[in-house]
């Protein structure tokens, strides 16, 4: 039984056209722009071919390097804390019989809220003069602390926002994973007299590994894309203490109007992350087989 080929092409064509037109063509356009110095005179672009000059500038751009460093710290530190907290909360939730649905509903809420609103919420919470955090500290006779205006606390403060925002997502995936584990393995472990920690180490974690890996990859991908919260809370500052790579690209391309140079930076980030993703996928596939 052979399905007709015209239907085969017809059904896949819209996706291919959309990807080609709105993803591949713009990527080619980025590469073209990255090789030229582009000046805007009265709304018209003037291109001057400069070969790889702008890529050399990216390599020597101190702000870009700071952005890459902060992005890695932000994504890795934030995701690690989220994974630990989310897993622990999910494990706790599996031990209760009643109220699970209610907790699940509460924990879905932050996942559905715009990054800009998350930023707005924490702009209020962190405010130096009247933010609730400093009010609470004041009751204890401590502070006030300029959470977002201080180079030593700003990055940690935005990471804390990310932990608050995304721990519920990890929780949700972990809970779904834990709920789908086969129960007979646990009964066997209990008959053998396994302690809670032995059960966790030898039964739960190995069975949960695929879910943990997928969740980790999801979270790192979204963590590396961070922009909205930084835009609203700190604008990369104070100094460059919360500068992240998406913000550097935005700054170079849009704020400073460096079309060609911003394109070169975009190309570097785009291909570096695509490559990192392919390597990570290949590594996890090999471990599984």
């Amino acid at each position, binding site marked *: 039984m052979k*399905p007709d080929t015209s239907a085969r092409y017809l*059904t896949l064509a819209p996706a291919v056209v959309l990807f080609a037109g709105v993803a591949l063509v713009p990527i080619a356009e980025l590469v073209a722009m990255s090789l030229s110095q582009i000046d805007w005179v009265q709304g018209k672009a003037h291109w001057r071919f400069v070969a790889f000059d702008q890529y050399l500038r990216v390599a020597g751009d101190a702000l870009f390097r700071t952005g890459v460093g902060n992005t890695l710290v932000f994504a890795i530190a934030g995701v690690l804390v989220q994974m630990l907290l989310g897993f622990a909360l999910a494990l706790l939730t599996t031990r209760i019989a009643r109220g699970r649905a209610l907790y699940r509903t*509460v*924990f879905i809420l932050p996942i559905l809220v715009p990054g800009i609103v998350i930023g707005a919420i924490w702009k209020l919470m962190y405010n130096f003069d009247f933010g609730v955090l400093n009010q609470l500290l004041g009751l204890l006779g401590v502070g006030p602390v300029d959470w977002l205006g201080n180079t030593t606390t700003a990055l940690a403060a935005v990471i804390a926002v990310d932990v608050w925002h995304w721990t519920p997502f990890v929780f949700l995936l972990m809970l779904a994973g834990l709920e789908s584990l086969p129960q007979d393995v646990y009964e066997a472990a209990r008959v053998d007299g396994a302690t809670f920690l032995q059960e966790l180490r030898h039964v739960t974690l190995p069975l949960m590994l695929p879910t943990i890996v997928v969740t980790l990859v999801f979270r790192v991908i979204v963590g590396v894309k961070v*922009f909205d919260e930084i835009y609203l809370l700190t604008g990369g500052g104070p100094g460059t203490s919360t500068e992240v790579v998406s913000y550097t690209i935005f700054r170079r391309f849009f704020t400073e109007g460096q079309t060609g140079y911003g394109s070169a930076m975009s190309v570097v980030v*785009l291909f570096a992350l695509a490559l990192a993703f392919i390597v990570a996928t290949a590594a996890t596939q090999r471990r599984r087989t």
Partner: protein
Amino acid sequence: MSRRSLRVPATHGALLVAAIIVLFPFVWIALAAFKTQISLMIGEVLFTPTLAHFDEVLFSGASDYLANYRNSLVIATASTLLVLVVATLAAYSIERLGWPRWLVHGFLLGAAVFNAIPPITLVGAWYVGFRALGLYDTYLAVILAHATLNLPLGIWLMATFVREVPRELEEAARIDGCGTLQMLWRVIVPVVMPGIAATAVLVFIHSWNEFVVALNLTARETATVPVAISKYAQENETKYGAMAAGAVLSVLPSLVLLFFAQRAIVRGLTAGAVK
């Protein structure tokens, strides 16, 4: 009391603390939206509520918030419909129409790689490209960008759901003389309707929430709700009350979906991650 009987209250206690930490900031911004500017600035906990900020955001001449809301609705609805049609067709194609396996894997890997790229890297090219085509500050530009960004997720989810449809259904329909496209419409789509709903809800929320593309591809005519909220926070003097009111109004669609479509949301978020 034995240790075992203490465990359940302790677990509830820990979860309750976590739930309060999650909810408190939402409650706080909702309260802030009803405080006067002075009440906000002196950090009053007990206050006389006012609707002044909602009035300013919704009805003052200087505010475009209602127009922004309409823009967000149009853009999120249109990009969701586009993703649903394109992703369902593509998922059916790669799962059921006998493409070589290497091609299917390559296609899905390509989509996944695209999904790993930060949107800001493409926004510059979209800005220049859409300007050249005369599409800057139009719905179409943002709809196309949002649909493309969400297409990998849409295809991934729909492929997962189509894969679960029993082959027997199709064989029975084929004996009855059902053609390939009829099969999709008459057999597959009705069976995967819960999956389509899950995909729709997630894509809609993503588009509704999206900021960096909307910030750079829209101007006054098509600016979306997140762009409007960011303006309140970015002016020389942050308008905290208006920002809070705008934020509260912006999460209403998500709250409605959380209330009526929670199963679909959970299905969409966990599909693929949990076998």
